[in-house]
């Protein structure tokens, strides 16, 4: 069912990720504007929104981490909530045990998510296509039900944090300070992934996404690259989870629910699979829409659903360019 060669849009730039200087400057400009945002909002007496934008940026980080796995590694993972939630719960559980320092609990959140993904990845990467989607989903559900049934850690209600983590001299209770820290984390993650994508490792990943069997035939141990990609994405999701637990001062099983994985995936698809800023764009678009629509109607889910359907059918250009390869690879495996 693959499209005939002639039907594919010409892509003279090629499928490898290459950041242009132009886009780097644009990213820097956006970053500066975002850094100045709390000051602007305070001046406008709208500081309520600082917390909202911080939340958007945390989801942007989570979606970006998923996009690394889906868009660069070519693995359609449907269990990203597990790593997101694992990060949040790690911070919350440590907090309850009296560990307040972010310098201990955040790296541990990243570590726990990475370790979890190592196990899940080792078990899941043997399967392909739909089976991979389903098995990652199942593992995430396992984690979800585990936390729901562990009454000791809050069960259905989740685990609330008495305060935000202590971060050296920074006062994270100040929403603006917390916002800047979140922004710094997101910027650092994007910078890291940008380097990765251009370096040998990233090249290999993208080539595996394009043609896995050929990479094996060029002597690359494909599984190891995919596994590491999976772990890196999960680790960043763990960081996002740690931030979100601090933001809402709650680690809730909702973070682990499969619809959370679905939402993150939707963000990635809407924003652009395999584009570095796809996750950011998707998170911003989705959460802004949510915020705007919920101001108009209680039934904003209905409107959002319809908009997403329109995106799928009427505006596939934004999302289609990179998914084409995934799609065709999926067909070739049949």
């Amino acid at each position: 069912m693959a499209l005939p060669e002639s039907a594919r849009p010409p892509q003279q730039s090629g499928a490898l990720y290459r950041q242009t200087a132009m886009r780097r400057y644009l990213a820097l400009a956006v970053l500066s504007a975002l850094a100045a945002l709390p000051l602007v909002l305070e001046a406008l007496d709208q500081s309520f929104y600082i917390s909202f934008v911080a939340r958007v940026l945390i989801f942007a980080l989570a979606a970006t981490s998923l996009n690394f796995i889906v868009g660069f590694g070519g693995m359609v993972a449907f269990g990203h909530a597990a790593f997101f939630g694992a990060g949040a719960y790690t911070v919350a559980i440590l907090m309850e045990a009296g560990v307040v320092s972010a310098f201990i609990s955040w790296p541990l959140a990243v570590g726990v998510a990475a370790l979890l993904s190592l196990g899940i990845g080792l078990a899941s990467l043997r399967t392909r296509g739909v089976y991979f989607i389903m098995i990652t989903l199942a593992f995430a559900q396992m984690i979800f039900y585990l936390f729901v049934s562990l009454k000791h850690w809050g069960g259905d209600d989740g685990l609330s944090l008495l305060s935000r983590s202590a971060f050296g001299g920074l006062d994270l209770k100040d929403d603006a300070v917390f916002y800047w820290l979140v922004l710094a984390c997101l910027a650092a993650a994007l910078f890291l992934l940008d380097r990765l994508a251009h370096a040998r490792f990233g090249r290999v990943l993208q080539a595996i996404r394009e043609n896995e069997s050929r990479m094996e035939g060029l002597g690359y141990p494909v599984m190891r690259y995919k596994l590491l990609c999976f772990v890196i994405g999960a680790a960043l999701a763990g960081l996002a989870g740690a931030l979100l637990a601090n933001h809402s001062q709650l680690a809730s099983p909702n973070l682990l629910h499969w619809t959370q994985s679905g939402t993150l995936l939707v963000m990635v698809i809407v924003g652009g699979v395999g584009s570095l800023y796809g996750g950011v764009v998707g998170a911003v678009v989705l959460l802004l829409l949510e915020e705007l629509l919920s101001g108009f109607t209680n039934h904003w889910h209905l409107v959002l659903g319809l908009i997403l359907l329109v995106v799928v059918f009427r505006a596939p250009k934004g999302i289609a360019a990179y998914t084409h390869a995934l799609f065709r690879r999926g067909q070739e495996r049949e």
Partner: protein
Amino acid sequence: MTQLFLEQALNGLQFGLMLFLLAAGLTLVFGIMDMINLAHGSLYMVGAYLAATVAAVSGSFIVGVLAAVIGTAIIGALLEVTVLRRLYVRDHLSQVLATFALIMIANESVRLIWGDQAVMLNPPDALSGPLEIAGFSYPAFRLLIIGVGVAVALLLYLVVTRTKVGMWVRAGASNREMAEAMGINVKQLFTLVFAAGAGLCALAGAMLGPLLAVQVGMGESILILAFVVIVIGGIGSIRGALVGSLLVGIVDTMGRALLPWVLREFLPGPVAANLGPALAAISIYLLMAAILFWRPAGLFPARG
């Protein structure tokens, strides 16, 4: 002890059979169209709501169930013709996005029509009490569910193995190009399969409605179980769906009932009290991971 064990085994069988109603349609859609349909659970929810409403208005449970099955099948067919049909040729990511959007739309539409509160669906009065057989008592309505489940499973088996339509479906599931080459009208077949799958969803929703709460979001939790079932059974295989359903239904139900009890024998009380439900909750996922580890394409792979 025997009473508990037998009761839980029957509960597991009953739940497994209902899962099969969901999984049968899902596995065919999955297998034939290579399509991820997250909105399958929404049809189950819609079916339950339709059944509850019609049963309340007409005063008859049976009328409610029939209306739900027919109504949902029509909704399913409309959905297939308007939206899903265009997704078959798209990649899995687009299918996830579109059907995720459908879940949102379905949930919110149900909320618009029926409100936030759970809706009551009562079993027929004649079946509301327990039935006693040789000193063993079991709710009559649950027996009915088992009866309906077995009947539908048999019917489905006969349709798939003995009729022309069934042959087309099997051909489509194992090799779509071949089916097209055989001159089967694949488009209409898909619509038919989808409508039938939707009807089965509604049947499950209507039968389980009196046991579980009829509420928004009921489709999402059972959807994942249905996915687990078809992955265990092998995507596209009806037989796999049946075996997978029964495995999942029985393991899940028995695990929840018996695991805490078994653990109490070996572990100190508080640990067992915490660990029991947790282990029971994840038992089917462990089962699935184990099966996929040994058989990456499920127990009964439909494709060679």
